[in-house]
Structures are given as C-alpha cells and as structure tokens.
C-alpha cells in the first residue's frame, strides 16, 4: 500500500480540535508532518505526544503576514520525509469515516494523481452545516486535498500573502478524481469564535479582493437568515 503523509500548519490549537484531528488522521495516515506557527499554548506538546508525528517549529508567527512562505516551508519539510501521497489538511477539518474504506482504493488507483473533496462548514455547532449562498458545499465545487507527489512538478506558490492555497499551484491544476467523501469543517462550529474570525477576515481583505463584501457580511447574519442542514 502506498504511503500517506498528512501535512498541516497549526497555531494555538490546544483548546480547539487538534487532539481529535490527530486521532482521526492516525486511523489512516502513515505519518503527519506539522509546522507549528509559533504557538503560545501547549499545541507543540500535544503534537509531540502523538506517534508518527514530525513537528517543525517556527520561531515567529507568519500565518498572517506571509502564508505562502509558511506553506512553502511545510512543503519543504514534507519532501524531506520522502512522501508518496500527501493530504494537506487543517486542524479543524475531518474526513468522514467512510474515507477509511475508500482510501486504499484511492491510493492504489493509477488514473488520478489528485483527489478533490467537498468541504461542509458546520455552523454554530457540529451537527449542522451551512447551505445558503456561497456556503453551499455542493455548489461551490471540489477542492484538491490529496495528491500524489511528483518530483517533476514545480513547487511554486502564487505570490499571495494569504488565501494562497495549501498545495503548490502545479498540483492544483491536475485532473482530479472527485470523491463523495465529505470533509467536515469545524472552523465555524464554535459560535463564540465567529465574530473574531469575521474581524480577522475583513482586516485581511479590506478591499474585498478575495471575496465579495456580502459574503463577509453573511458571516454575521442573524440565525434566522442562515440556512443549515443536518449532518448525517
């Protein structure tokens, strides 16, 4: 069976979903490469308490100033570990359980070098995901999370400070298999964190270069305007 390496950038995840995420990843990943972006909590200790984890640490936080460079560092560390298949995931994203059955087939097939998934944003809790406007997980398409490492492809990132994507550009242009396995995203699941996340998003993108104003505003919509559906 080909090797599967999960890679992620973490920062101050101690009180979030890191333990659950690592537990879940270790059910199918052979190893996990983590770049800690100068956490100020016990995130590095948590990572190190897990088997098959390679932890790299960043002395000063870069995520908000130069995400692309941070991503490139993680990619560099990943290649040092001789990867075969690479899953680029965040510490608040979870592949649903059916992936366990599917993953051996995906890694052994030879037609697709990249696998795309649909991301479902849980909203205010972990049992319901958001479906209005651009939040609709079915209509915004698939994103590539899983790729087969190919030495001949370039490792360049677009020169964007943030929203620069988690894989090198060349990998995001591959023809990919679209998996029915859903990714559950808990980044918006904690209702107390939503306002802070909104403020960060707007601060990062004052000119609405990456997303329309209305989409940012929709983060703060009152519950009666938000449409959700139950995660089953």
């Amino acid at each position, binding site marked *: 069976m080909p090797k599967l390496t999960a890679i992620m950038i973490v920062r101050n995840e101690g009180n979030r979903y890191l333990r659950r995420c690592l537990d879940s990843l270790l059910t199918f990943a052979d190893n996990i490469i983590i770049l800690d972006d100068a956490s100020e909590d016990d995130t590095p200790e948590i990572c190190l308490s897990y088997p098959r984890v390679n932890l790299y640490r960043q002395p000063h936080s870069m995520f908000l100033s130069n995400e692309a460079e941070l991503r490139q560092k993680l990619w560099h560390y990943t290649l040092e570990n001789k990867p075969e298949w690479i899953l680029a995931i965040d510490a608040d994203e979870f592949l649903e359980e*059916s992936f366990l*059955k*599917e993953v051996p*087939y*995906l890694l*052994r*097939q*030879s*037609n697709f070098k990249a696998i795309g998934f649909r991301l479902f944003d849980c909203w205010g809790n972990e049992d319901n995901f958001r479906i209005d406007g651009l939040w*609709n997980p*079915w*209509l915004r*398409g698939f994103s590539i999370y899983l790729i087969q490492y190919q030495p001949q492809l370039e490792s360049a990132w677009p020169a964007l400070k943030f929203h620069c994507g988690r894989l090198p550009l060349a990998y995001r242009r591959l*023809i990919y*298999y*679209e*998996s*029915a396995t859903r990714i559950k995203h808990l980044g918006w699941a904690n209702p107390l964190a939503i306002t802070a996340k909104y403020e960060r998003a707007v601060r990062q993108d004052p000119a609405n270069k990456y997303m329309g104003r209305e989409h940012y505003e929709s983060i703060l919509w009152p519950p009666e305007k938000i449409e959700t*559906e*139950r995660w*089953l």
Partner: protein
Amino acid sequence: MKKKVALLTTNFFNPKGERIITGGAERYQVDFCRLLRDMDFDVEVWQMGDNWTKEFDGIKIHGLPVNKTEYQTFPELNMGFYENVMSFDYTLYFILSLAYPLVREKSISISHGVYWDWPGFDATTGKLAIKQEWLRRMELSLAGPQKLVSVDTNTINYFNATLPSFYNKWEYIPNYVDTDLFLPLEEDLRNDKIRILFPRRMVPVRGINETMRAAEILTKKYPSIEFHFCGRGHDDTIEMLMSQWASKQERCYYYWKPFEMMPEIYQMADIVLIPSRSTEGTSLAALESMACGKPVIAGLAGGLSDLIIHGYNGYLVKPSVENLVSSIEELINDPKKRKLMGERGREIATSFNKKTWHERWANVISEVFR
C-alpha cells in the same frame, strides 16, 4: 515504426478540460485505448475543447475549438479532426454521427447503443424535414467507415430495418466485464438486510425518478430493505438534491465510489436495478452486477435484452413505478429466486468476459488497420 491511430469523440473531458466525465462510454474509451496500445499502436484522442492538450492514462487528448452541432451531428468537429490527423494511419469514430461528413480511408465507427430513442431527441428533431436530414446524415456517416461496430444487436437491427444497405459492415461486439475482478462473494457476509442497488448516473433516462418513488413506497412497507443510489449526477445541483432527498428518507443512501471499489458495492447488494427508459447499450453496470452474481431488474431499452432474459436472470420491464415495485417485491419475498437468478447471471456474464472482447476487437482491427 509504430502505426498511429486517431480517435474522435465529443466529450471525454468537459469542454474546458477541467473535469472528466465518468460514464460507461468513457470507461470504454480508456479500456479501448489500452487495447490498442497492447496491439502496439500509438493512440491519440480528439474532442471538443478550447485548444488544449491533456493526458489521461498515458493517452494524449486534444481539444478542438468547435462547438457547433446541427441535426445532432458535428460537421465542424469532424472536419477539424480530419485536417488534424493527416499524419495518422487509421481513424476511429467513437460515436456513429461523428463520421459525418468526411472520413479517412481506413476507419471504424462505434455505436454504444441507440440514443435517438430518448424523447428529447424527438423533441429537437421531431419535424419531418429535420428528421429526414438527420437520417440522411446518418446514412452518410455509416457509408464512410470500413466497419461499423455495435455494442448491442438493437442498433444493428434498427439500421438494418431503416438503412439496410450496410448489413455487411456491421460487427456485433458486446460490452464486457472483467470476470476475475467482478466476482460473487464466496462467503455470504451480508446480514438480514436486503440491499437494492441503483448503480447508475442520476438522470431521468436511467429511471432515477421512478426508482426514487419505488424506494419511498418499498422502504415504508419493508423494514428490512435498504436502497443504495451509487453514481454521479449530471451536475452539482442534482448531487445536492439527491443528498437532500436521501437524508430525508429512511434507509435510502446516496454516494458514489471509485471504480476500483465497485466490485465490493455490487457484492453487498441483493438486487440490482438498471431501469433505463432509453439511450442504452449493453450496460457495463448490468454486466458487472451479473458477474457479481446478482439478479438484475432492467428496463426495456437498447441492448439490455441482449443481457437479461426475462424471468431467468432478472426481469425486463417497462420501468414504471408500479412495475418496479412489483418486480422488486417478487425478489424481496423469494430469496431462493434471487440466488438462482444471480447464479444464472454470473454464468451469462462469463460469456461477456473482457478477454473475449479483446479477441473480437483484435479481429476487426486487424481486418481494417492494415
């Protein structure tokens, strides 16, 4: 030096070249290109697209910047292809109508089944003058190629009754199944649930609407049955609607799986539905279900009657809700019949094995490509 084969199709990728369209015909194309490579030919593929070249399974696929269709034919695509493949030795037309108006001397056309039995086809070509023009063009597209290969007898019968002068050009090479990969389970691991599988694209001509209605009726009546809808929708909205519908039903599930996982999906089923209303050849899904030892309830369409003998290895019905409900019920209530029909299906499937398909194609290819 290796001889070069050029194959013309319409959409293997979507016209932008970003997404792959994964239906039976596309799988056929991949397997067919592999067969040609095994016979030591170099193969390249052309389709509609914005001047790009992509690679899939080691085969180059070129997008030709044309998108005009008239009378359900593609003359611009055909001529663009003709001019682009001058340096190739042989040509293959992956759909009959693609061979209109021009073909190279050594060429073969393939039919994957009658597609003009779809009601929408009549709605667009319904007027007599349009229909006559379509038929005139079909006649020309049959005249060019040296051989016409059909995956079912239905296409051949239609043309022999309509344009009889091509009788001697037709070859029947039915679809295939890898009977070493698609196998019955040796040990029955299933529990007391009865699983009914719809392994098709979620489109009306495949009988999806009737099957959903039958699922609503039958899951209410029988607590032991499950309905599994396994396949892609035509677009994202259909997949959304299917997911939403399934989540509101008891014991109805919607998903799809990588091809490599499909033997397992068929093996876990008790009854397989192929309730097509039209546009059908010798369905790969039907053959794969049979090879896994499952009884098949199939629609009266296309080449399904080449695979299913009514009452022997499944049922051939007009796929109305009522007919689906009653034929599924018969099999729910008779486990012995399910088993017997499944065993017969497996036996029939062995005569459609992939090795035989290779041999039959190799014969036709060696007659034309020389």
